[in-house]
């Protein structure tokens, strides 16, 4: 090439390619894995070529590849805009840019693309782990960028990485300012949220098999922070969808949408708490029983179920108050009564017969409830996550033959028994229990804590919660699913981590870290921004004032940094002295310390005598230093050379004198 274009040194190029790969890597688990793989392949191909000492592929090939990439993205998504196609395009183009990189300009461009790739990672995950990883990738990218800017004679990798991390650290205050003051949008950026995708949680249908899947999921469902000590585990019923309709096989809300919200009468003291709900893609807010007032953005529906106005597609925070003592629907409206007594004709004949028998013998409804619970307690019922399959009518088969199942078997069958006995009853789903995290002072409820129980309506008492599952193994209600399962034969199904207490403690620690991350970082929305600003006395700041404040703060930070830099430039040693100081430090660590009044040449003679194998290199490095410090030559190149050679210096153990 006749043009004098600065080309990339192989070492610099490989560093850049490495940083790019790190940025692309997480996308293998995100929205466009096949394109991430293609991009990685392109980057790897360039690295292979560089290592072979070969040039990039021709421009024609790259142009064809670019067209192919465009076509592939379009064929996959039928458009080129939006989150996934956009990211796929960015990944492919970054890979191709890396593939055709030869000059410094190419490298710079690829490096900047790499930063964008890092940013797109947050479209898919905002978890703490991913944020941490991406921060490290930014450091690697910056290190590669420094190498690009300084050319082949730049400082060694360790120094560059240190500089990059330092830069990252210095940008932290700016990041905090931007984070706190940047005006929050009331809803996420259009096209970024993808509701319903790969989310687990409660469903409004209860069919066999569903809860056992949740029971194995360690994923957090919600976290609750109580002002005081948390209530005991047997009070922690997190109310989800209420199921009224039974079709002989599965339960659903049925016509609940047409029912009125219940009449609620709170007794005793309120229990205030903060609920941090993981995104579910559904509108239900599993609040502690029983919520008095719906917070903004939610309402209380039929069966006193708290639902949000929109599906919950991101971490959401609610300030709630629960009344553990309550009366719900002291009088039962007719529509409710009908819905709470519904049974499909012909379903569960044996259960109906049993219920009728109880009803005839019992003085009141409460006695029938006790009869049913006694039946479960005394007839060898067993709690298991892998129940034998049911044949024929599921309720009859469960109650009279298999007698093994998990909460939904019990809750469903119990409600059928009650309804057969003429007692209004309904199934309530949600979560039960939770794990108190003493490190974060909150209760963590996992998907594994999903539960189903029953409510019966008793005259004069309203709806009363009955948990028939509690009648089986007594520890089912007191402890969470994990603990309950620990003593059961199915234990092998659960991940190892439950067994070891140390791991358990680590897992608690990890969850509290996540909790704070969720609460303070992801949970910091428009609402909390307003609250924080109000606390700072800036309640009436509008968006424009916020932006002004942001710019002002950033300018102040920049000035502060400039002042710090000027101050440091005066007080810290020049690079040459710093490099020499490192040599002295290394030697001192090996027992050869330079005396204050000792000249460098005298000292190096002494040091070389201690490390005969390194003597020649020591003398050479020293000569460089002495020449640069006391000679008439410019010291900076020597400083870098010294830095490099000190890093490579091997100090064998000192020779022992006889």
């Amino acid at each position, binding site marked *: 090439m006749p043009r004098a274009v600065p080309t990339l040194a192989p070492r610099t190029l490989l560093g850049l390619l490495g940083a790019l790969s790190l940025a692309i890597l997480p996308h293998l688990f995100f929205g466009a894995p096949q394109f991430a793989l293609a991009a990685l392949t392109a980057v790897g191909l360039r690295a292979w070529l560089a290592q072979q000492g070969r040039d990039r592929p021709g421009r024609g090939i790259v142009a064809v590849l670019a067209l192919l990439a465009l076509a592939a993205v379009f064929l996959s998504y039928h458009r080129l805009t939006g989150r996934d196609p956009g990211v796929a395009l960015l990944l492919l183009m970054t890979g191709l840019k890396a593939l055709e990189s030869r000059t410094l300009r190419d490298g710079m461009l690829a490096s900047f693309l790499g930063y964008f790739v890092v940013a797109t990672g947050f479209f898919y995950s905002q978890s703490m782990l991913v944020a941490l990883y991406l921060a490290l990738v930014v450091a690697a990218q910056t290190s590669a960028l420094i190498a690009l800017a300084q050319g082949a004679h730049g400082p060694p990798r360790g120094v560059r990485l240190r500089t990059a991390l330092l830069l990252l650290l210095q940008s932290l205050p700016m990041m905090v300012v931007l984070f706190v003051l940047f005006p929050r949008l009331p809803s996420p950026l259009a096209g970024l949220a993808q509701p319903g995708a790969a989310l687990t949680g409660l469903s409004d249908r209860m069919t066999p098999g569903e809860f056992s899947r949740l029971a194995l999921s360690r994923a957090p469902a919600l976290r609750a922070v109580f002002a005081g000590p948390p209530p005991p585990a047997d009070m922690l019923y997190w109310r989800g969808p209420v199921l009224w309709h039974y079709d002989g096989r599965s339960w659903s809300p049925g016509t609940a949408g047409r029912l009125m919200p219940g009449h609620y009468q709170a007794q005793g003291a309120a229990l205030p708490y903060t609920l941090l709900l993981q995104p579910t893609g559904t509108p239900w807010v599993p609040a502690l029983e029983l919520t008095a007032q719906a917070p903004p953005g939610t309402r209380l529906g039929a069966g006193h179920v708290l639902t949000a106005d929109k599906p919950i597609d991101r971490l959401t925070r609610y300030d709630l108050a629960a009344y553990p003592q309550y009366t719900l629907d002291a009088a039962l409206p007719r529509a409710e009564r009908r819905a709470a007594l519904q049974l499909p004709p012909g379903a569960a004949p044996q259960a109906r017969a049993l219920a009728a028998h109880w009803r005839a013998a019992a003085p009141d409804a409460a006695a029938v409830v006790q009869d049913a619970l006694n039946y479960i307690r005394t007839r060898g019922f067993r709690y298991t996550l892998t129940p034998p399959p049911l044949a024929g009518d599921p309720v009859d088969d469960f109650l009279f033959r298999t007698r093994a199942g998990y909460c939904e078997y019990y809750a469903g069958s119990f409600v059928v028994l009650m309804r057969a006995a003429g007692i209004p009853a309904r199934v309530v789903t949600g979560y039960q229990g939770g794990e108190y995290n003493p490190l974060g002072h909150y209760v963590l409820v996992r998907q594994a804590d999903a539960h189903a129980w029953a409510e019966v309506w008793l005259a004069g008492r309203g709806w009363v919660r009955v948990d028939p599952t509690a009648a089986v193994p007594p520890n089912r209600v007191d402890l969470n699913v994990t603990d309950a399962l620990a003593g059961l034969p199915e234990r092998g199904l659960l991940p190892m981590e439950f067994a070891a207490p140390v791991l358990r403690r680590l897992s608690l620690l990890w969850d509290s870290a996540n909790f704070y991350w969720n609460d303070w970082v992801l949970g910091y929305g428009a609402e909390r921004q307003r609250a924080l600003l109000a606390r700072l006395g800036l309640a009436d700041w509008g968006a424009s004032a916020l932006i002004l404040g942001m710019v002002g703060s950033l300018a102040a930070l920049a000035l502060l940094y400039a002042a710090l830099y000027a101050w440091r430039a005066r007080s810290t040693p020049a690079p040459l002295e710093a490099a020499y100081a490192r040599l002295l430090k290394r030697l001192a660590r090996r027992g050869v310390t330079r005396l204050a009044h*000792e000249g460098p040449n005298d000292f190096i003679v002494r040091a070389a005598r201690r490390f005969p194998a390194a003597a*020649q290199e020591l*003398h050479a490095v020293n000569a460089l230093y002495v*020449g640069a*410090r*006391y*000679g*008439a030559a410019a010291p900076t190149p020597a400083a870098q050379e010294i830095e490099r050679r000190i890093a490579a210096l091997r100090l064998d153990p000192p020779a022992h004198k006889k």
Partner: protein
Amino acid sequence: MLERAPRPQPAVDARILRLLAALEGIILGKRAQLELALACLLARGHLLIEDLPGVGKTTLAHALARALGLQFARIQFTSDLLPADILGVSVFDRSGSRFEFHPGPLFAQLILADEVNRATPKAQSALLEAMEEHQVTVDGVTRRLPEPFFVVATQNPRHQVGTFALPESQLDRFTMRIELGYPAHEAERALLRGEDRRTLIGALAPCVSAADLTELQRAVHRVHAADPIVAYVQALLAASRAPGRYREGLSPRAGLALVRAAQAWALLRGRDFVVPEDVQAVLPAVAGHRLQALDERASAPAAELLQSVAVP
């Protein structure tokens, strides 16, 4: 002298090596002192040799003059020496009816002022003024002394009888003071077996020309003394002036002498820049005669000064 590891030394000027070799042929086993003396002269300084009689002070001065190809004059200082005996006198010339100046022995390039502390202060000051100014004024007429102009003075240790100790102000004019000391065993044997030194000096041919000498002196000036070196010298001066250590601190002239001597020492080592070790190597010779520790027991004030100052 510090021990050096065997490694390639920078190229030393061949003329310097020649000079040192020639001097070593005469003064045996005194390499360090010869180097210091040579450095002193290359730095255009005057040299004071203090030692017992008979250890070779005069021989050294004479050999220096011969090796450098300088016009040599020797002035034996005695208690009855008059300034005119050094500077010269104006004598009335009858035929020309005017005074004619008869230059004294001072009008030479290398003066050996032997046993300078035997003379009276009056005669001493006549010499010392000439050393500083490189000129003498007799009968109102100022006359330049030849260039280069070196004074090598020898002095007997102060405690010997019949000596007038040089005052501090006079001592300060000598760039260096060195001591020769008794020769080492081997060297003394060679001395005893060898030829008469005087014969050897007579046979000694000049090793450098006058132009070479001037060039070497200029080269000393060109040796780079970087900021850290100047800072180091300043730190040494400051430490010498700290109260409670020495009777008097080092003068600015001493500081200048230190820099020049260090530059010359660097040139002798074949370097074109000064390193801290150069300063350290010449400091005892440069500062030794200017410093008097207040603590009478302190034996080596210059070494102690070095130990107390960190190398920047």
